[in-house]
């Protein structure tokens, strides 16, 4: 990651190096956006919609999104379902285990702001943005697969805008 990040700095001193940089930017960002592999992380009823979106009727695969069972192989966490206070450290652990660049989609009202458990609940974390940085929020209880696809397309737009210098 360190070399990639410094690459534009060296290349821009070379005549014509800017073309290389922008082309590489284009290739990298397009490839990343077209293969956002997501972590299997369903904690409540939103996971049913996530599974429906992954199945053949809505077909996540046409966006290049395949589920992975290991955080080491994923680029994206779709936090589908209620995150309780007991689950929150585990979510943070999974996020920390992912390789950068990594993204988070907060799917459903529970992960956005506690959802139906906002009032009178001692056990539910009120929004996962207390735990991990969130890129896209998808409200709904649960959101329909169309909403989830829209959220993923929004994330793809965000990823496509990234340049090599922005990589953390």
């Amino acid at each position, binding site marked *: 990651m360190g070399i990639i990040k410094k690459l534009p700095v060296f290349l821009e001193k070379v005549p014509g190096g800017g073309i290389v940089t922008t082309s590489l930017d284009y290739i990298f960002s397009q490839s990343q956006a077209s293969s956002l592999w997501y972590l299997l992380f369903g904690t409540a009823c939103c996971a049913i919609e996530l599974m429906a979106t992954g199945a053949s009727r809505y077909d996540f695969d046409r966006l290049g999104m395949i589920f992975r069972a290991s955080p080491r192989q994923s680029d994206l966490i779709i936090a589908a379902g209620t995150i309780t*206070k*007991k689950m929150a450290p585990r979510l943070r652990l999974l996020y920390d285990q992912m390789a950068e660049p990594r993204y988070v989609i907060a799917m459903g009202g529970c992960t956005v702001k506690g959802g139906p458990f*906002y*009032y*009178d*609940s*001692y*056990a539910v974390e*009120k929004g996962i943005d207390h735990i991990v940085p969130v890129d896209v929020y998808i409200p709904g209880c649960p959101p329909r697969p169309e909403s989830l696809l829209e959220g993923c397309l929004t994330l793809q737009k965000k990823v496509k805008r990234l340049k090599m210098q922005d990589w953390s």
Partner: protein
Amino acid sequence: MDREQLIKYIQDKFPGKVTLLDCGRVEPFFKVELGFLKEFCQAIRDDTTLGMDYLCNIAGVDSGEHYEVVYSVASVKNKIRFDFKIFPERENPAIDSVIDVWPGANWYEREVWELYGINITGHPSLKRFLLPDDWNQGHPMRKNWDAPDFVRMPEN
């Protein structure tokens, strides 16, 4: 044994210690005196006519004025089931453990202790059960419980 026979049998067997509560349910619902709990449980399990061999559930209740602990018991052999509840004291609530009668009571009693703060006398391992391991905010199912990020439902 139908409902009326069961009510009569239990009230005749434990005179003065057990009262019937009017709750509109199919199964009868009794109130048991606080100190009589363990003796009562032992008796209904060992009695051949009743033979309550299965403890379905123990639930805690905080009504705001008093605590309640509700026991649901069933007899697989005799096909009977009924519920009974006891009322622990408001200050320093404590009840007897019924693990000796039904070993399955272990986790239910831990849950009641953890969420309601009702002390279970004679329980072998009252330790953290459902809440996070580093929980230090008291007993969250009590009516007067509060925490910094706890939002109470507005009245209307």
